Structure formats: C-alpha cells, structure tokens
C-alpha cells in the first residue's frame, strides 16, 4: 500500500528537512513543472486526478482552480491560501503534515500557485500550532535559499512569495471566506457567494483557498500522474486520506489509508477496537460538525458520496466515537456549546438559535428538561440546520450532531426528561 503523504515521516516525529525531503524526490515536481509545463497542463493533471478537497466539503480541486480567470493583461495580484486553521473538534491531520513534513505543503502550494499564476501565497494557521508555525517558516526560508520561492523561481520568470499568517483563534476563521476577511484584518464574517473567491477573493482579487492536506497531494499527483492517484483509492474516490479516530478506542490516532477504506477497518484494525468494557454506540464520521452514524454503518467505505447518502458527511475524515458509557445528551451539549461559542454572530439562526439550543440541552442534561423541550430542539434543528437558512455552513454543521442524536438516541433524551436526571452519572 502506498502512503505518499506520510512516507517521509519519522518515528520520532522530527521534521523532514529540505535536504532529506529532496533526497526522496522532493521538489522534483516543482523542478519539472515551473517554467517547463504550462499552468493549463498542471491543471489538467489535477483535474484528471479527481482530487477532492480534504477540508470538509470535498469539492474537486481542479474544478475550483479552473474558475480563476487567466487573463494575461490583468497585472494585479492573485493569491493562493493554504487553510491550516484546523479547529474542527476531533481533527488533527493537517498538523501532522505541517509538523513532520512541511515541505510537502510548500511544494504543493508552489504547484497550485503556478497553476493559477498566483504571486503571493499565505498559510493561514491556527495559533496553537506553534511547532508547525516554526517549521513552516524554516521551510519557507530554506526554499528561498534554494530558489524554489521568491523572484524568478528556477529561472522561469515566475515569482511567488509565501507568508505564514497566524490566526487570531476563532473556528470561523477556517471557513474560507471568513478566513479571507480575517486575513484582510477585518471581522471574520463569512462572505456571501457568489462572487466566489476564485473571482473576487483576498483584497478583491482572484484567490484559491485549499486545505493543507489537499495541497499536500498535489506534488505526488504531478510526479506520478492522475491515474496513479486514482488507483490509490479503493472505492469511488481518488488518493489516500489521513483518517483519524478519537474516543474510547484502544489506539486513537491518524493514519494514511486509501480513500474508501471501510469504517470497520478503521475502528477495529487501525484504532485497535473499543477499549475493554466499552461498546460503540455511534460516531461522528468527519469531525464534530457531522451527523452521527451508528454501528449499522460500520461497513460503509469512507467515500464522500457514500457517507453523504448514509445521512452524514465525510467532513475531515476524522471520526469521534461515542461509546455506551458516555451520555449522548452531554456529548451533544458539549458540541453545541463549542459551536455556539464559535459562532461569528453574523446571522440570526446561528447567533441566537445555538445558545438557545445549548441552554435547552443543558437543562435536559441536568434533569430540568420538560417534554416540550424536544419539540423546541426539533424546531430549532430545522430552523438552524437547513442549508440556505444561515449565511454559512457553520450552523448546519453545528446542529447536525443534535438532529441525528434525536434520531438515533431519542430514548436517552426522553429518559433524562422522564427521570429528571442523567443516568450515565
């Protein structure tokens, strides 16, 4: 099994330096591409590879890039932004790449920026990632010394600078348009689309925002070709993916596995199964902002459309497991209170609706719930949850664990209300 994303990573987790990175074929893709292939050729490979965004929505990267206007007469800037905000609860995959093999991201960014002819790149990174920030800065400076970044890269006439921008620390800053506002020094409110960032993004200029993991795939695609990348997946989707699991499993962690790996294999093989004395009750397949799935879904492959059909989303591919000794009401309350706190405050359903839901859940959890509360939760779930009801996707994501919990674990909610206490304590 090939593991292009993690193949260089070391057991002691020390970062791969530029020389080591190059010794295993690093920057070969940049060397053979910049000034040698046309942007359109790179775009075609990425399109053919069917690389889907690893940030959560699974949007095809090549298609996203193709919306950038390639108008040679327009002298203004274009931007490429690596989204390294990674604040989704239960998600710790981009961190792995940036801390242990940062050049993979830089190389992917150079190729992506070249494809859209961006001259400035930003890595928008979560403030808590001190270690990654340091390694990325080192990597960038090493690239400047080697001529992979800066003016006239590899004598091609192509210029690119990459800056590391440390986020001020809000979950919403990971939403790509809120990210752009934040990068401009403005309030981190999402923007309404259209216009899409590809046309009017950072400072009103064409901009691409991609997840760190998506960008890290690019050099491997350029090196090995679209068919190779497609063949890595064992299901419908292409490539490998950093899947992860947290919760009461024996070995929580993150592993690079083919797209389409069955959930059961993830849980039982890679995570070593549930801890002794615990049973799996359900799981959020792609981070805290996805709907619960249950045991019945364990044999599904982790593919975007499959998980979607099952009623959830693959999201970041980083699962959170609910066991039989943890109260689902408390878990949902915890999740909702995170999202209520992280709401940007721009639109009504999210700003006002989530705190209300949080309060109702808290009342139920501490034994003060009343039967009507379930109707309120259901109504609020519809109000907040439908796509289009809110200005951005934070709110629907925030409420998905609740609406699915009401479907799968309703008896727990009813028990709390009936017995006026939580039976898990």
């Amino acid at each position, binding site marked *: 099994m090939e593991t292009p994303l993690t193949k260089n990573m070391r057991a002691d987790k020390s970062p791969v330096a530029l020389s080591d990175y190059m010794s295993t074929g690093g920057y070969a893709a940049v060397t053979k591409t910049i000034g040698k292939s046309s942007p359109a050729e790179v775009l075609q490979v990425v399109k053919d590879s069917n690389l889907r965004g690893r940030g959560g929505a699974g949007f095809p990267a090549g298609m996203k890039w193709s919306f950038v206007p390639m108008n040679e007469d327009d002298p203004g800037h274009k931007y490429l932004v690596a989204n390294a905000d990674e604040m989704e609860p239960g998600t710790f995959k981009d961190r792995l790449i940036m801390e242990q093999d940062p050049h993979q991201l830089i190389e992917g960014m150079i190729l992506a920026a070249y494809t859209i002819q961006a001259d400035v790149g930003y890595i928008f990174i979560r403030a808590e990632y001190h270690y990654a920030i340091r390694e990325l800065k080192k990597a960038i400076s090493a690239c400047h010394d080697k001529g992979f970044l800066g003016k006239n890269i590899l004598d091609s006439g192509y210029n690119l600078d990459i800056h590391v921008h440390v986020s001020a620390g*809000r979950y*919403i800053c990971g939403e790509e348009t809120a990210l752009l*506002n934040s990068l401009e020094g403005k*309030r*981190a409110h999402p*923007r*309404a689309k*259209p*216009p899409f960032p590809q*046309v*009017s993004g950072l*400072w*009103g200029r064409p901009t691409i925002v991609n997840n760190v993991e998506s960008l890290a795939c690019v050099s491997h695609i350029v090196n090995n070709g679209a068919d190779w990348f497609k063949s890595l997946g064992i299901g419908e989707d292409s490539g490998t993916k950093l899947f992860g699991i947290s919760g009461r499993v024996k070995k929580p962690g993150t592993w690079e596995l083919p797209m389409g790996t069955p959930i059961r294999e993830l849980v039982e093989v890679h995570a070593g199964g549930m801890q002794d004395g615990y049973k799996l009750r359900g799981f959020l397949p792609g981070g805290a902002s996805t709907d619960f799935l249950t045991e019945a879904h364990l044999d599904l492959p982790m593919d975007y459309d499959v998980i979607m059909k099952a009623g959830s989303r693959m999201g970041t591919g980083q699962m959170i497991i609910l066991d039989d000794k943890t109260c689902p009401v408390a878990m949902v309350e915890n999740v909702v209170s995170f999202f*209520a*706190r*992280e*709401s*940007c*405050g*721009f*639109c*009504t*359903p999210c*700003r*006002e*609706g*989530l*705190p*209300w839901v949080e*309060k109702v859940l808290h009342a139920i959890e501490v034994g003060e719930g009343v039967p*009507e509360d379930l109707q*309120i939760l259901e*109504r609020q779930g519809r*109000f907040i949850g*439908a796509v*289009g*009801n*809110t*200005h951005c996707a934070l709110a629907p994501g925030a409420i998905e664990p609740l609406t699915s919990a009401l479907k799968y674990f309703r008896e727990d909610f009813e028990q709390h209300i009936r017995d006026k206490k939580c039976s898990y304590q």
Partner: protein
Amino acid sequence: MPTIIVDGISYQVDANDNLLEALLGLGLDLPYFCWHPSMGSIGSCRQCAVIQYQDEDDQQGRLVMSCMTPVTEGAILSIDAEPAAEFRSAVIENLMINHPHDCPVCEEGGECHLQDMTVMAGHSMRHYKGLKTTHRNQYLGPLLNHEMNRCIACYRCVRYYQDYAGGTDLAVFGSRGRVYFGRHEDGVLQSEFAGNLVEVCPTGVFTDKPLSERYTRKWDLQSAPAVCTGCSMGCNISVAERYGELRRIHNRYNSEVNGYFLCDRGRFGGGFVNHEDRIRRCGVRNASGVYDPVSKQQMLEKVSALISAAGSKVVAIGSPRASLESNHLLGKLVGRENFYSGLSGREQSIINAIYAIQQTGGARIPTLREVEAADAVLILGEDVTNTSARLALSLRQTVRNRSKEMANQIQIPLWHDAAVRKLAQDEKSPLVLVTASEDRLEDVSCLTHRAGPDDTARIGYAIANIIDNRYSRPADLTDNEQTLAASIASILKNAEKPLIISGSGSLNLAVVEAAANVAWALKGENKDSGLIYCVPECNSLGVTMLHDGNSNNLDDLLSGSDDIDVAIVLENDLYRRAGSTAINSWLGKVKNLVVIDQLDNPTASVATLVLPAASFAETEGTLVNYEGRAQRSFAAFLPQGDIQGSWQWLLDIADQVGTQKFGSIRQFDQVTEDIAAQNAALSGVTKAAPDASYRSGAGQKIARMTHRASGRTAMVADVTMYEPQQPVDNTSALAFTMEGANLIKPGEVPSSLTPYIWSPGWNSNQAIIKFQAETGGALTDSDPGVRLIATASPVADLHTRHTTIPAITRHQGGSLQLVPGYHLFGSEELSAYSKAIAELTPRGYFAVHPDVAGQLGVADHDGLETQINGANVQLEVVVSESVARQCVVYSYGIDATGELVHEKRGTFKKAESWESSRPSNLIMSDR
C-alpha cells in the same frame, strides 16, 4: 422587464433589483431588517426569506433570502408558503430571545420596525425560558441615546456609520450571541451624520436624546412637512410638536434632495425654537433700555405711526434666512429702492455672481441624487462637510462609482453591498480637494492641495486654461501650480460626468469664477459637467433671485450718510454680517430700529421696537435651495404669545398703515402668487406645493396629527373638562387636528403636503417604501419642490467672462489672509442656540500653521489679537499643520467673528492678556 410569479400572480419587475426590493416595490409585505434601500443587502438577519421554485413541477422549492437573490426571468416564488412563513416567524422568535419585552417604556415604541416586523411575521408565542443577555449602555454625546439591550444585531448601524457615512468611531465588537454595537469607549460620536442612526436602527438602541428630554410618541406628535433652515441644501424634514414645543425633526424623504438622511445640524438644530431667548411678546424699549411688553395692536399702531409720519425715511433690511414671502412683502412695504438684501456687500457680490453663472446654462446644477452619479469631483475652496453637510454625505457615495464599475465588470449586482465593497477595497472615483485647512473629505480624496482662497482660484483658472486655452491663464503660474493644475485637469478630462463644487464659503469671488471656468471648459470638451455652488443660508439664493440678482446690500446701507427715521430689520442679526463699529455708527443715524425676529440677538437688543417672529416650525414659507429648487415649508403648530410669521406681521403692518401697495393681498397664498407675478425668475414658486384650497380625494384637509393622536382631547383635562377649540389653519391645506386626511394612501396626498409617513402595519419611517414608485426611488407623487433655474443652452463666449485672476498670495508686510473656517455645530446662527448643538460647538479660534505660529510667537491655547475696523478681536490660537501658510483661519459665526467677515487680510500679534474662557468642546473631527 422580467416577469416573476409570486404566489401564483405574475408581475413585471426591474432586472437590476434583488427579490426583496422587487417584492416591496410591488406593494407586497415582506419583513426585513438588515437590508436598507440606500445601503443594499448583506444577508445577516435572514428575515426576508421566501420560497423559490425551480419550475412549475417543483413542489418543494428552496428557501432563499430575497434580499440576496437577483431577479431572474420567470422566477417562481412564494411569500405565503408555509415553510417560508414558519421560518420568518422563527427568525423573529429567535431575535426576541434576548430582547426586552418592555415596549411601553421604549422610545422606539409606536414607530418601531421591530414591532412592525414582529406583527408581520406572525410570531406571538414565546417558548424561550432562559435568561436574557444584557449589555452596558454607553454615553455617546448629547445627540443620541444608547440602549444596547434592544439590539437585534442587524448590523445596519455599523454599515451606515462606517461604510455609508465614513465614520470611524462606531463599530461592532465581540462575536457570537454577544456582539456589541457601540464605541470602543464612552464618548461623543464623531460623525456629522450620527443622528441618522435614530432612523437607520430598526429598534430602540439609538434614539433621539433631545427628544427623550421631553418625550412624545410618534402618534401623539403634531407634524408638518418642512424644509431645513440649517444650510442651503434644502433637506426635507418632518418637524414635530407637542404642547407648543418643537419636539423633534425627522427625515422627510425626497429622492432628489436628502433621500433618507439628514445631517446632525438639521436634525438637532431646531432646539432654538424652544429657547429661553425666544422673543414671545411685542416689546418697546423704554428710556432705561428695558423692553416693556405691549399688545399686538399697540405695536401695530406704533409701527404704523412711525412709517406713516410725513416725510419719514423708511428702509428695510431683508434676510437670507427668511422666506421669499417675508422678504417680498418687506420690499413691497418700503419700496424696492429702500430694500436692502441683508447680505453683506462681499457676500452679495459673490452670490450675485453665482446666480449669474447659474443663469448662463453653462453647466448642469446637479441635485444631490445626481451628485452621486458623478465620476470625478473637484472641490475648490469649500469645506462642504461643515457648510453643506448633506452634500458631503452624497459625495461619500459618489466616490464609490469606481467600485460600481468594477462590480459591473464581473456581474456582481450593485445591491450586493459587501461583495461590491470587498471587490473594490480602497478603489475610489477621484475626488480632488483644494482647501485652506483640514477637510473631512480628505479620507476619500485622491488629491488634497492646501491653498488660501486666492491661490485656490489661481489653480482653478489654470485648470480651465489647460482644458481649453481660450480660458484665461494666470500670468505668473509657478511650476508647482502648473503641475498640480495639469494633473487635476487630466483627472477631470478622464471623466464623463465631472462635478465641480465651490461656493461662497471662502468669501472669495475669484474662487467662484474660477470654478465656473473649469465646469464650462469641461462642457466644451463634451463632458456632462456639473457645477454646484454652496451658498451660506437656506434662502441666500432666494433673496438674490427676488430682485434678479441686483438688490441693494447691507453695505450700501451702512456706508450711506442719510439720516433714517425707521429701519426695519427682518430676521437678521446684523452683527454677524458687518463690523460693530460700522453698525453702531450707522445706528447713530437711525431714529427707530424695528426688529422682527425669533431670538433676542445683539441686533434685537438695540432695537426700539421688537416684533416676535415665528420660526420655521411655526409658519409657512418658500425657500430656494442651492440648486434653485423652491420648496414650501409648513408650520407644525401655531406659536403662543404674540408670535406670528414675519409675512403676517408685514401684512398686518400694511393693513394698519392703510397702504394701497399691497392691493388685495391678505393671504399667504396671495403673497406667493404676487412673487410669481412680479418676478419672472420666480414664476414657478406657486408650484412648490398646492395652495390652501387643496383637499384630499375625500374632500378633507390634511391632518397634522395621526389618527391615533388620542391624547389631544385630554391634553388640558387637568385644567378644564372642556376641550378648547383647535386653531383653524386658513393658510395651508393642513389642519391642526387628527381629523381629516391622515390615513394617507400612496399618491393620495401630494408629497409636499405629507406631514409624516405612516402606512398600515408600517409605523416607522420605513413606511416610505409604500410611497415610492419603485423601492428607493422617486415618490409616487413626484418629489417635492420645483426647480426655478432651467439648464438652458449655454450662452456663447463663456470663456471671456471671468478673467480677473488674483495674484499669488505672499506675505504682505506681516499681514495674513483671513479665511473663514466653518463648523457644522456653531457656524449657523439659529441652530447654534440648540442646547445639544451648543454643547458640541468649539470655542472661537484663530488657526495658523506652525510656521506662522512660530513667527507670531504663539502656541496652542495662547491668544491672538487683531485690530479690524476699529474693533479688537481676540481669539484662542489653534496650531495645525493643515492650515495653509499665509492664512489665518477663524471660526466663522462663533464668538466675535462678525468683525472679521468683511476683511481679506489682517495683522496679528499675540494677545498678552489672553485667558481662555470656556472649556473646549472641540471634538476630534474639528482638528
């Protein structure tokens, strides 16, 4: 025009609209908060949701925010569909979670958009049981209250304040359910347009502070359509009264003039009407200088006796802040040859020149709406924000035309406000400023040049000459001037609709003439150039037009040597327009000074006879604004005491005198008709508004009170059980009562007669939507006012007209050029009496450049003195980098600056015994 189907009915709508605008424009009801017709959409409140169906077979549809969805041909929509209605109700329910349920003590109550939308959206049952979020309120200065608990976080206030009005000190703080709208700390709001928050905020967060002192609900107010007297822009206002006091001024929509917004002088400057210095009785000065009250009849007899005495020499001084009607009757009473306009010679010559320029037809005079369509602006020597504030607010929109162009290029609809702003970032259409001192528009200007008035005129002349070399060129143009003029000329030539703005502000004729040359030269290049002159007062242009631009002025009178038996002064404090020495020596020749005015000002205090005049809130009058638009203003209430309109005093005096000069004129409307008959230029004034005979469709007069003014009948119940008879209004088509036409339907009553705006279910000013032909556009019954100056085809040979170019300003034996500096709060006579405005008025000052301060040996807070025409004027020193060298800028209209307005230059020295008298209220924006 695309067709859309809404709940089964087809409509034609504008392709450039979003669905919300389109639906509201069709007269349909749909609740909204964050969208504003002047500010576009951002999609934050989610209140305006409707269902959009893909095609006829689509049963389910998709919920969309109508304000964020463009009109598309064939769109199938439903407002009534259950999911949409349920969602809209849920939005209100969620907004209400933290909202106080105490409408009865909220000052927005009764004209609250949130109340209206709550009822419209149908939410009535509360399910939330938790505690409410609460906030601390802030002190925001004397104009606005702040009650943050009432906030529904629609983001309108910050969008208006920052994005629309260019303010920097009101923002949104925090995030999630705890967003806070206010200042970073307590303090006076710095924007000149902050007061509009009262109407922009859909809830009771920002409310009118002077109103709260003597609070009245909208439904208990008695209102009238009036015109602001604060400056020459002629903004339309709705002025409101209760218990004989002016309570508040609200915006009255006029799509060509003020649109939705006023400036804070206009909104809060009416306080003088209630001022303790108001003259309320007729008075005769006795030997010891005290005024003895006399009855109205006694006064009329006294005045009449003075005027009728055999061989009596009677003169009259009119006023640019009095109505056409009052000025006209005054001239009629004493005869044209004895009428003096009341403007100083300097001012009058400038305004005459402006009027003459306007009559050439050489360039368009844009309305404020048209200002917003210009693609390049040059301002020569006028501090627009402080002299003609509403124009500055329009200019802040004008500079956004570049961003609209950019948006059009990539098909971003212009109503998509956030997207347009993000796309354009700091890109702006060019606005060039040539001013003598700091200007509030500098933040949106692409080029600011500091120059005294003469040098400003030279730049203007040079620009015109570069555009078309038939226009005179300054002989000794310096290299710097040449370069600057060339770059400004090229900016203007690159535009299609360049706009030149100047005015009487710098009291310099050459500036005015140079501005015309630029506009004309551009016109010659086939540009659709516009030319705006700001004039000082609400009727400066009107009094000038009254005598075709050649009436006598105040200086003609003061410099005469004749002894005068009676001088009648109409609404005019002479000490603001001439030096005290000149006035006092003239007064020595005047046997009887008769003053008709509102306030006990310095002129009234030396009068022999004082007649109390009604203010703009208490009487009718026609005013002519900067663009030559005649607008009628109506009384909101009848004043108590002997107060009556100046025109009425003059009719009564004429009656008493028994003169034949007035013919059969007995009524206000007849005065207006006489003006139209006597002056070709003013022949349109009768069309400014319907006359007193107008009746609504149902044959009724128009009620000044709302149909809910239930309190009227109980107003004096504590004193007497008999309800006094309401005063009868014979002067206009309005009535002092709630009986009559008050459930006004769109188009039913002429807009110029609409006292306040209300529509069923729409109690706030946002009801104006129901009175617009299309959302945010002209009123169904065209906008009020009639334009008197036609843009005729230009007279030939314009380039030969203005050739008197001033020499470059140099130090002349230590004398400095005197330049008036204006303040929105304080420079205008009447508004300065309003308590809230007085609190914001800076101390009088002489501002100088640091170099000049060094030469004079003065620093901030020292005093400077100058001897002028026999008077010694001392004011505090303000040292500022942004004052042109060679100039001293003085606080026009504030403290003893009337002494200075005549002089172009002065010699200054440090005032050794200077002690600063008042605490400084100078707000940051003034520095």
